[in-house]
């Protein structure tokens, strides 16, 4: 197959293809922009003591009014890590976007196989499609970085700026991001396509070899041991806190990179299926239909719920810590800490919005794939507003409990570590942040569902009764 033929077959042609391309491009551009910004911060050599005077071996250079989190060498890694972590939900959105229109795409791949394309050629086409979108995102990462600099550097007041003035080395970082995005996008496209086997008569799911259960258990237990080993003495520690914190973080990371992904996938799916069954038992038509959709396709909601649980935990931790700061008489620079917590909260909220957008993309995809059954429901007399409520219920049922449970766990966990505080300093802020987070996510899901109304309307067109 010639490269020109690969491009001909990989170019986006349908509305779903174009939507998929735009989402992958957009998400990759944002993630790339964040990475370039993180790299720029990491390259800084200035070091201030927080009061504006410079310390360290470098000659004093103007810090451009940077916030202490960036200008102080000891705090800078936290900002870099935060920016890198923010790319995780954004990249998850890109991966979810790769699955948009999967039923139509699978049908197309089967048609290509019938026309004579080999399995390898089908994978090449999928890789080229995803690689092109991600490469475009990598190209746009530079402009996105400049926008971030404008928003979080130029426009912020002196002393609060998070993104330093761009430097010539950023071009190298940008080129690296472009390369990694192109290769990573193509690899992700091939992996997503590789999970289904396209055959001339249709597709079948590939059931790959499962990792041994013992390895997952070992990862989970090892991580838990580190977390408990660090967390329990932390409550009584007078000194050596950093070592214990490091143990807790190491345990969490160990779990995240060993048993984490598989557990998230399996537990997420199981919990969403269970949630679907619970909804269906309630008996109303809206709950019945929303529960049915969750049970039929629990993968995307399961992944999003996992992200929202983590976001909830972060919010719960923050709520209790902020309460602790505000109610404890200490020699704290409150504005310094509160700005830091505020930045972290904004980062978490961005992650929440991106996660809900991922849910929205999944729901849009379901609408596309379920045109015929939805048009049939409409023909049977189920009106559009009922189906819109199904969409809202489907999304809020997956997202709201996840963030609330996360906030409760985060608040309670931090409260345990800060057991010197009375219950009023733990229970109330935990409950308050859980309620607020749940309400905010509920609102975002309502808004997201509203965005789908026009697509829902086109899905209900009687013409779709003829769709195979």
């Amino acid at each position, binding site marked *: 197959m*010639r490269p020109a*033929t690969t491009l001909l077959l990989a170019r986006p042609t349908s509305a779903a293809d174009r939507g998929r391309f735009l989402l992958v491009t957009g998400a990759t551009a944002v993630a790339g922009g964040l990475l370039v910004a993180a790299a720029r911060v990491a390259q800084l050599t200035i070091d201030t003591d927080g009061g504006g005077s410079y310390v360290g071996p470098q000659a004093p250079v103007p810090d451009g009014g940077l916030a202490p989190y960036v200008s102080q060498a000891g705090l800078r890694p936290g900002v870099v890590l935060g920016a890198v972590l923010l790319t995780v939900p954004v990249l998850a959105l890109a991966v979810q976007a790769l699955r948009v229109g999967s039923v139509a795409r699978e049908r197309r791949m089967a048609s*290509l*196989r019938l*026309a*004579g*394309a080999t*399995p390898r050629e089908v994978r090449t086409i999928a890789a080229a499609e995803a690689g092109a979108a991600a490469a475009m995102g990598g190209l746009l990462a530079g402009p996105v970085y400049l926008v971030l600099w404008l928003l979080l550097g130029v426009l912020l007041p002196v002393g609060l700026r998070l993104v330093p003035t761009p430097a010539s080395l950023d071009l190298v970082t940008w080129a690296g991001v472009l390369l990694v995005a192109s290769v990573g996008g193509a690899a992700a496209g091939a992996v997503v396509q590789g999970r289904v086997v396209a*055959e001339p008569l249709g597709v079948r799911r590939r059931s790959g070899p499962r990792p041994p259960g013992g390895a997952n258990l070992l990862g989970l237990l090892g991580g838990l041991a580190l977390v408990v080993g660090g967390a329990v003495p932390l409550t009584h520690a007078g000194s050596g806190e950093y070592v214990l914190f490091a143990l807790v973080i190491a345990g969490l990371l160990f779990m995240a990179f060993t048993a984490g992904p598989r557990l998230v996938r399996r537990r997420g799916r199981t919990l969403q299926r269970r949630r679907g069954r619970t909804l269906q038992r309630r008996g109303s038509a809206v709950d019945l239909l929303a529960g049915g959709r969750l049970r039929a396709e629990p993968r995307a909601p399961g992944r999003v719920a996992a992200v929202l649980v983590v976001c909830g935990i972060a919010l719960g931790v923050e709520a209790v810590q902020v309460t602790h700061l505000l109610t404890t008489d200490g020699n704290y620079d409150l504005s310094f800490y509160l700005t830091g917590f505020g930045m972290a909260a904004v980062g978490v909220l961005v992650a929440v919005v991106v996660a809900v957008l991922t849910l929205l993309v999944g729901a849009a995809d379901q609408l596309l794939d379920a045109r015929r059954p939805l048009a049939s429901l409409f023909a049977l007399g189920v009106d559009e507003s009922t189906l819109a409520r199904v969409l809202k219920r489907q999304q809020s049922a997956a997202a709201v409990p996840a963030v609330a449970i996360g906030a409760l766990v985060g608040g309670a966990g931090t409260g345990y570590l800060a057991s010197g505080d009375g219950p009023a300093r733990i229970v109330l802020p935990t409950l308050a942040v859980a309620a607020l987070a749940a309400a905010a996510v509920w609102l975002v899901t309502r808004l997201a569902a509203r965005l789908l109304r026009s697509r829902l309307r086109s899905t209900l067109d009687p013409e779709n009764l003829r769709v195979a």
Partner: protein
Amino acid sequence: MTDPSPLVVELTGVKHSYRRTVALRGVSLAVRAHEVVAVTGPSGCGKSTLLHAAAGIVRPQGGTVQLLGHDLAVLDETARTLLRRRRVGIVLQFGQLVPDLSVLDNVALPLLLEGHDREAAQTAAAEWLARTGLEDCADVSPAELSGGQAQRAAVARALVTGPAVVFADEPTGSMDTVAGELLLDLLVGAARERGAAVVLVTHDNLVAARADREVRLRDGVVEAEAVLR
């Protein structure tokens, strides 16, 4: 006197099941070059499975399949696909065209996949579209075609590579009688003209009557064979 034409398809004792449903219980069938064979029988008798096994789309669980001199059991998926792409044409009931390519590109696709220049592939495809009466539909999307037009485009795609054998599964199943007759004229006429064998799966006696030989299946076995011309 024996027929001197070489065998293009030879199935021996082919068995296949889908979970608990037995589709084929040891079917043997031989098709020679230039021959048009109709496989008939009631729904669920195993006709389509037989065609899929003969074309190498399905790997049967028992027996052997020789296609154009190749034992399909020893070919991997890619080799079987390349064999189909280069020397076999396939027409299914609903055309199964690639929805987001134009009709012209759909017909040119097997040549493009084979590495032909796009212009040359499109020229060859345009000739076949003209033969099938679809020259005015070259640039339209398959979604805009009627069922009969889509089937004619599928026939053009099946014949564009000059195959040695064409497999057609209920090619007129979604068409009225007149359109079905026209499609068969086209398919069988073009195949005979090029010396290609045709294996037609159908439950329609009028379609079967166009064949040189009819093989009748029932419950996964060959019930009867009849030479028609």
